[in-house]
């Protein structure tokens, strides 16, 4: 390194001293509250017991990982986890975007505000309560079957939760119903940043509604969509534990066992922290890889990336 470049480096750093001053508290915070506890991940390779310290536990190498991968249920669990997540990604992901765009087209301001408020209400119903209600509503004699039969959509009632074939659908629809309005908030915020004059100008040019949506609204929220998409992809190995756990039962177990419920069953309650941590670590690594792939792909396709 030459003297002048070193000097440049220092000069550059000095010129952005205020920026650095703003970043560093965050870095220190992350070091303390994320990175120090993160060293606890080592128990994935140990046999940790709660009555002894993390550092005293015996090393067991990859034993916990091997146990997980060789479990006869592994394939089934992975299929369900990825299957439900893919459904949510393909169908559940675009719906809030469409909803946000359509909501933006509603003319009457009061109506618009009301819909927005109402649509986000279900987010606040806790799954603990909703799970119980859904079991009743989805039963053969429940409200949902009654409505579907009366409207002629179904010939005879279906026990939705008794058949593994319906489980993914039930998981998708109930989740979408609950989170549609909530997930739309971030897109609504992005749409609200669009200059109204652009629409007016387009109207003068004779653009149709669809053209306006396609050429003004969508490009304006593309960045937000990309970010949310990348994060959703990275999250594919995570399931909505409460939802799956409460709606799952012995009859639909073939379709409702996911990684998260498996970890719970195989003994988080029994205190097998090492095993749970190992599976968690596996999920983290996959999530990280998915994130990098998604980020790379969107960058190539859209010229947009996470950061």
């Amino acid at each position, binding site marked *: 390194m030459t003297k002048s470049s070193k000097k440049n480096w220092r000069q550059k750093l000095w010129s952005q001293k205020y920026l650095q001053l703003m970043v560093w508290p965050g870095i220190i915070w992350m070091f303390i509250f994320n990175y120090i506890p993160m060293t606890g991940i080592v128990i994935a390779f140990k046999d940790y017991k709660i009555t002894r310290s993390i550092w005293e536990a015996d090393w067991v190498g990859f034993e916990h990982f091997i146990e997980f991968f060789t479990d006869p249920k592994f394939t089934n669990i992975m299929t369900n986890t990825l299957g439900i997540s893919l459904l949510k990604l393909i169908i559940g992901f675009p719906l809030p975007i469409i909803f946000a765009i359509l909501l933006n087209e509603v003319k009457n301001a009061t109506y618009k505000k009301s819909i927005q408020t109402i*649509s986000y209400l279900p987010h606040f119903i806790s799954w603990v309560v909703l799970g119980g209600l859904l079991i009743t509503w989805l039963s053969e004699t429940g409200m949902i079957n009654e409505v579907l039969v009366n409207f002629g959509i179904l010939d005879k009632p279906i026990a939705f939760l008794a058949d593994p074939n319906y489980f993914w659908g039930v998981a998708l629809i109930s989740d979408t119903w609950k989170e549609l309005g909530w997930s739309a908030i971030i897109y609504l915020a992005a749409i*609200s940043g669009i200059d109204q004059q652009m629409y007016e100008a387009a109207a003068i040019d004779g653009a149709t509604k669809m053209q306006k949506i396609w050429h003004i609204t969508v490009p304006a929220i593309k960045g937000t969509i990309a970010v949310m998409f990348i994060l959703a992809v990275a999250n594919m190995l995570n399931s909505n534990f409460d939802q799956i756990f409460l709606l799952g039962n012995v009859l639909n177990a073939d379709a409702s066992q996911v990684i998260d419920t498996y970890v719970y069953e195989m003994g988080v309650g029994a205190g097998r922290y090492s095993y749970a941590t190992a599976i968690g670590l596996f999920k983290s690594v996959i999530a990280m890889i998915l994130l990098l792939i998604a980020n790379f792909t969107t960058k190539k396709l859209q010229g947009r990336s996470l950061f």
Partner: protein
Amino acid sequence: MRMFKRGNRTNGEMCFDWVNNILMFCICFITLYPIWYILVNSFNEGADAMLGGIFWWPREFTTENYAAVFANKGLMTSFGITVLRTLIGTVTNVFFTAMVAYPLSKEHLMGRKFYIIMGTITMFFSGGLIPSFLLYKNLDILNKFIVYILPSLFNFFNLIIFVNFFREIPKALEESASIDGANDIVIFLKVILPLSKPVLATIALFTGVYHWNDYFAGVIFIQDASLEPIQTFLYRIVAESGSNQMVAAATNVVKSTTSLSIKLATMVITTFPIVCVYPFLQKYFVKGMLIGAVKE
């Protein structure tokens, strides 16, 4: 020809508006009905509600379920704790995260790549509950109010949203401010923050709802009942205690079962205040603040 085209367009738009309005109405109904069901059942006498069949209106109207929940001593203290942590937690988190995010939205920031990688890792890797518990114990923040605030002061997911928003802000604004002699901190406070109301409102909503709904910290990190947030308090009422083979096998103890109606009333009580906040934030989502400001 021209007239025809214009007429057609208007028809098309009207048609679109109608379909859209009806669609929105359907979504509203589907969303609202289950909530109505919950409300109605929460206002119905508990034992009677167990018999089912209440869809549109309470059969035996009562406010006793609500009275039963409010009869819990300490509920108001818990409520105060929740309000306090939501307010303090949200303000500190939003401000702190935005502050860290602003420099990271600058491509020329030295070490940016390192900071980003460091942050991204935190989104995926975590040591789990016990290491965090030990950390808090050694930092001596267990069983103190600050345990609600400090560990959730910063959130990298929110940071990403901030960064993406800040990047869209026209550079011209900052440049003109820095020519006027303002340093980066002043620019952030005086120029960037006022322009970022939609994103601040969004993140405040996310963080506020997180603080409002979080019961877990109150379960694990708090021993003192007077520091419990309302959600912890009420989670006990709502959560099903698991199948207790041993409990019943052993004794005369009648495990008081909470009726569904009381559970629903509990849920309404915990949800109502936070739901009311939304319309106040909503105004920031309505029109384009950002571009308006640029024009002025």
